[in-house]
């Protein structure tokens, strides 16, 4: 029975991969060949030089701030005891899974007349430097720092912690941190910076709400204006080119730093890193915890506090559920379906890769990252080009939410694949290899070795994709059929217009629900790690 389940799961996963990843990518390639363009003046799209400058300024601001904000939480995550780790992972995930539009909206409310922080903020925020790029970048950093924190935590756990302990023997904490820890974390710093930069470059909601017109916002403007597919893809290619240059640069900069990787490996140095060794370490540890807590509170607590300080009133809570009930119902159903599809896709690629050493499965897994790295508006164009045609396929696009679900999987499915790959890891592969050597087939390994090992991760991945999919706005606007309202689009639409109690209470609900779900995710992820 278990075998049938995993075979079915993988089959569905391959269907999702074909329909939600390969098909739109083919659509993007087809669209790239289309000629024609509308006048960008008609829809007031800025010149490409302006877009390039603003996009770079915004993403660089986000990157620098997010990496800086992530340093202390990374140290906490990297050195936390196993007992505390699930809670901490959940807490770190929460800011990342709160929809980015909530941050932009909350900071926008800071300057509202009734806001307690109004006196500290300028009245008109739209005319700041570089068309709001720095403001948008800082807000994005408040959302994305957990990404850098989690990547850096891996480095801290493997090398940084021990390097710090060793350096403390000869130097003070600051010097030790700068001269030993930072160099030891260089590959992780680069990886974190690249990831944050890429996500902020592709993200739509924050720059849109802060009126910062960058590539991500203008791509959707072109889509909305009905621009020819080729024109949209040509603009998207500029974004992809930036990302490719960045990745090449990072690969070139990161030279092998294996000597740092070895630091934490031998028992003697590893013991030095255990908490509570010396007074300096204990004090530093307390300061680190305090700093990490400050980052968390400033980036998430303050926005939530701002919204609470406006006292939306109890009737607004009822109203947020009553008038948005259709949106909640529809979005939740679609997001759950996307989460389940992502689980199936991760099973059919990452898990199957470990079970069968299948090149096809591995390639499928990598393809999901390709889709995730394409600007969502371009991905949406790919979907429309493939699915918007007469017949059954067109019916799926216009009358059912199938294509919408697939498009959400294409945006976030890579996360599920990554989580499963990381969970399986070297140990999982070794166990699967051993089972194979003992004569077990791929289905048997999947059902009796890998599934019992990774199911908490799979569930966590599904939950994470569900939370992200629920508040996705770009492909949702492009592929969502009439009759299936989206809470994300409705909220984003109303967030433009200043204080709205329904939007405030709905945002608070999302944060509270996110807190519960991320705590579950933290426990699931840590459970998978221990299995």
């Amino acid at each position: 029975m278990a075998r049938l389940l995993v075979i079915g799961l993988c089959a569905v996963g391959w269907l999702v991969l074909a329909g939600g990843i390969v098909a739109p990518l083919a659509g993007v390639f087809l669209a790239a060949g289309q000629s024609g363009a509308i006048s960008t003046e008609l829809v007031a799209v800025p010149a490409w030089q302006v877009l390039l400058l603003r996009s770079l300024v915004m993403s660089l601001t986000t990157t620098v701030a997010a990496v800086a904000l992530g340093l202390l939480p990374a140290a906490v995550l990297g050195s936390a005891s196993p007992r505390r780790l699930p809670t901490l992972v959940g807490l770190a995930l929460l800011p990342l899974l709160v929809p980015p539009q909530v941050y932009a909206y909350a900071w926008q409310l800071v300057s509202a007349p009734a806001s307690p922080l109004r006196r500290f903020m300028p009245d008109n925020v739209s005319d700041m430097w570089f068309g709001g790029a720095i403001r948008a970048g800082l807000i994005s950093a408040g959302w994305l720092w957990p990404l850098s924190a989690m990547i850096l935590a891996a480095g801290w756990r493997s090398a940084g912690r021990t390097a710090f302990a060793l350096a403390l023997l000869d130097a003070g904490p600051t010097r030790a941190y700068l001269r030993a820890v930072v160099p030891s974390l260089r590959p992780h710093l680069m990886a974190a910076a690249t990831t944050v930069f890429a996500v902020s470059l592709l993200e739509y909601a924050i720059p849109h709400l802060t009126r910062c017109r960058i590539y991500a916002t203008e791509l959707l403007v072109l889509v909305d204006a009905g621009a020819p597919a080729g024109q949209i893809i040509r603009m998207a290619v500029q974004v992809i080119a930036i990302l490719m240059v960045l990745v090449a640069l990072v690969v070139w900069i990161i030279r092998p730093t294996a000597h740092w990787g070895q630091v934490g490996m031998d028992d003697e140095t590893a013991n030095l890193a255990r908490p509570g060794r010396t007074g300096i370490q204990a004090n530093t540890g307390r300061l680190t915890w305090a700093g990490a807590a400050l980052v968390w509170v400033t980036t998430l607590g303050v926005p939530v506090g701002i919204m609470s300080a406006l006292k939306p009133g109890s009737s607004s809570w009822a109203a947020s559920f009553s008038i948005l009930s259709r949106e909640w119902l529809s979005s939740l159903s679609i997001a759950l379906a996307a989460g389940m599809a992502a689980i199936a896709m991760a099973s059919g690629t990452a898990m199957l890769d470990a079970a069968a050493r299948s090149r096809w499965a591995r390639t499928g897994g990598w393809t999901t990252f390709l889709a995730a790295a394409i600007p969502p508006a371009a991905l949406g164009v790919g979907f429309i080009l493939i699915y918007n045609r007469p017949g059954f396929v067109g019916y799926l696009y216009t009358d059912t939410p199938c294509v919408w679900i697939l498009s959400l999987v294409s945006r976030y499915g890579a996360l599920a694949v990554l989580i499963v790959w990381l969970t399986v890891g070297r140990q999982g592969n070794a166990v699967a290899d051993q089972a194979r050597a003992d004569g077990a087939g791929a289905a048997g390994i999947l059902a009796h070795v890998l599934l019992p090992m990774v199911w908490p991760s799979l569930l966590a991945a599904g939950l994470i994709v569900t939370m992200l999919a629920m508040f996705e706005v770009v492909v949702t606007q492009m592929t969502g059929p009439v009759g299936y309202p989206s809470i994300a689009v409705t909220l984003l639409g109303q967030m433009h217009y200043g204080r709205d109690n329904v939007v405030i209470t709905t945002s608070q609900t999302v944060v509270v629900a996110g807190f519960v779900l991320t705590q579950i995710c933290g426990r699931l992820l840590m459970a998978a790690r221990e299995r």
Partner: protein
Amino acid sequence: MKLLTDIATHDGANHPNNHLSTRLATRTKLSTLLLAIAIAGGMVGCQKRGISGRTPERIIGSHGFGPGQFHRPRAIATAPDGCVFVVDMTARIQRFSPDGEFEVVWRTPESENGKPTGITIDAQGRVLVADSHYHRIIIYDRDGRELARFGQGGTGPGQFDLVAKAVVDPQGMVYVSEYGLTSRISRFSPDFKFLGSFGGPDSGPASLSRPQSMAFDNDGTLWVADACNHRICRFSRDGKLLFTFGGPGYEPGRLQYPYGLAVCDDGTLLVVEFGNNRLQRFDRAGKSLEVWGKPGTQPGQMLDAWSVAVGKQGRVYVVDCRNHRVQMFRM
């Protein structure tokens, strides 16, 4: 890890952990079934919507950037002679005959920051455009020649944040509503001198939350679409709150983000709801008399209904934003 090694090195059939897998599979199957039912229920539930329909007499415009076409129209107004003016998301203002024939087009001077969201024609036939993101009102003649402009950005008295709409009372006083950092209505003399404001955040029950649209009643009182409070307010000309109706909801008589309103010749009120994608007609006591429209792309259906205007001979024009068109109904 040892457990996994054990599993891997045995034939799975007789291993005790196989029971775990079976239980897991059973639980997973059950959860999957329940989840599938919930999702399917949610999806089916989403489609059961809409109340009633009324066939439009004419559809004006289609998606595009040419004369007579629209890209996300958002505001509409009718002139005393029955002509119709429409603003869309290309910052174009287009004039149509009462029957929807295209006549003239022009654009606001700048639009990179954002596009106008309101338009009004006063008794003299002047076109007042709420240039929202430039914090000003631009006044044109009916052919698009600029006559005047006033307003500056800010939240102080007489300043504007994002302008939603301007209307002119029979004495020529100009009322301007704003959203964004301020949600209030400011009153100006005919030569645009600031006289006062009302409906701001400290106004108690009269506090407005995004007064998206306004219209003067035949008795000189001011109807306001208080969009984010999901209600319609009636103010005296000096800003005293007289009456409200509506409240959030789907049922007839309830409102979800009322963006546009217009007063009919018989004194009834037409309110267009962005959130419910429909139009309701109310009597002066706030009782719902009729509901038109539901979400969709067919004639009579709407996607993001933004604005409404009443023309001559019972014509009613509804801006159907996301369908890039104006639907003309007959009362």
